[in-house]
């Protein structure tokens, strides 16, 4: 159990990198929600934007992550600090599941319920906030859950451009050909992904409409 000893010996650094990792994932997910949920709402109400928006998000998803980090490096303000860059890239990757699930969730709301609300004189905003979003909430959150789990994994690669996070152990371990160091990054990252999955998942179940 060399790994455990290694982690125990370096626990301050493990903790520090874990927090950095959480910061990258947390901020990028927040940005992705801020952009993705409104976009999902728009395309569920304006079907002609549906294809281009989803296609765009899909294309971003297909860019290899290491390449995307590399591409963004020369961008002026962003390239100055690696964490800005990592957050932008992670945000872009998290968009697709959030947009798609917001769209699916809102389209899945019973049209009879929406029409009843409209017929009774709810404004479009009231319909959105009182009917569509609450009823789509659990589907939207399951998109957020997927996004978080993907981000936790992808954020390890951010260390390649010096953005920190648990990837630092992984890259250092690879360079040193030392399994203990690799695992000191990989195990906490896996645990983070698991914890995020479970916690967002339980929130999602609580919001599921009956």
């Amino acid at each position, binding site marked *: 159990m060399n790994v455990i000893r290694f982690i125990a010996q370096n626990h301050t650094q493990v903790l520090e990198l874990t927090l950095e990792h959480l910061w990258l994932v947390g901020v990028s997910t927040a940005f992705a929600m801020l952009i993705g949920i409104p976009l999902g709402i728009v395309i569920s109400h304006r079907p002609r934007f549906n294809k281009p928006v989803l296609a765009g998000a899909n294309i971003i998803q297909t860019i290899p992550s290491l390449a995307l980090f590399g591409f963004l490096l020369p961008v002026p303000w962003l390239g100055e600090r690696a964490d800005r860059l990592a957050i932008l890239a992670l945000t872009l990757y998290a968009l697709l599941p959030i947009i798609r699930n917001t769209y699916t969730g809102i389209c899945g709301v019973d049209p009879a319920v929406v*029409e009843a609300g409209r017929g009774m004189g709810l404004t479009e905003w009231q319909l959105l906030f009182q009917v569509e979003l609450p009823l789509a909430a659990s589907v939207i959150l399951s998109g957020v859950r997927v996004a978080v789990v993907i981000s936790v994994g992808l954020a390890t690669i951010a260390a390649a451009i010096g953005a920190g996070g648990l990837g630092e152990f992984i890259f250092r371990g690879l360079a040193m050909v030392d399994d203990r160091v690799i695992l000191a990054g990989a195990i906490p990252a896996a645990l983070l992904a698991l914890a995020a999955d479970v916690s967002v998942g339980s929130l999602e179940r609580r919001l599921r409409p009956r």
Partner: protein
Amino acid sequence: MQLGHESPVIEFRDVSYRVNGTQVLSDLSLQVASGETLVLLGRSGSGKTTTLKLINRLVSPTSGKILVNGVSNGEGDIIRLRRGIGYVIQDAGLFPHFTVERNIGLVPKIEGWPEGKTRARAQELMQLVGLPLEMASRYPHQLSGGQRQRVGVARALAADPAILLMDEPFAALDPLTRDELQREFLLLQQRLHKTVVFVTHDLREALRLGSRIALMEAGKLVTVLSPKEFLKSKDRWAEAYVRAFGDGLESAADRGTS
């Protein structure tokens, strides 16, 4: 209470509605008097639901005008118009994430009534439609079909609208529950004198509830008759209806659940 020759509450003037090249309604002219229950009778696709949705402007006519209280409903505030018209649909269309009380209090709440008044109104309406008060905190999925429909009626009545639109409200119910709700509807209407437009494909329901029956076929208004006139009518479509239901009332009752 017969109101005689007052101006109609709802009036269709040469209304046509076309969508994607399909003529859904052609040259519909129709008047609904204050306090009456006008039944729109017709088979699926005859345009009766579209006619109903034209009144609260869920559908806008391709040509023609719909006057509500003497004013074209295409002018002015559509939200105001709708809040002044109760709307009941099949399966009630209740908000699944709202309790019974919040469902009923929906329009009062968005109209900005104080919370206490909204709550009192919801309870008053629950009593009116025969729902036990302990159901106030239940969710729609915890209710039977008949109870949900009662909530739907209570919700439509919440802000005391003068007009009530009902789109096959009892069609999905079992025959006993339907019979019960039809009877209660009549009692309610004796007390409240709302102007009701009621859509159904069930002739027996139409005869029982309507003060007049507007028969529709293929997007056209065939005739408007009182229930008694309807049974004696020599009109081709009216006769066809009477024959279809008269041949066997048992089979007619079965059809009603479909």
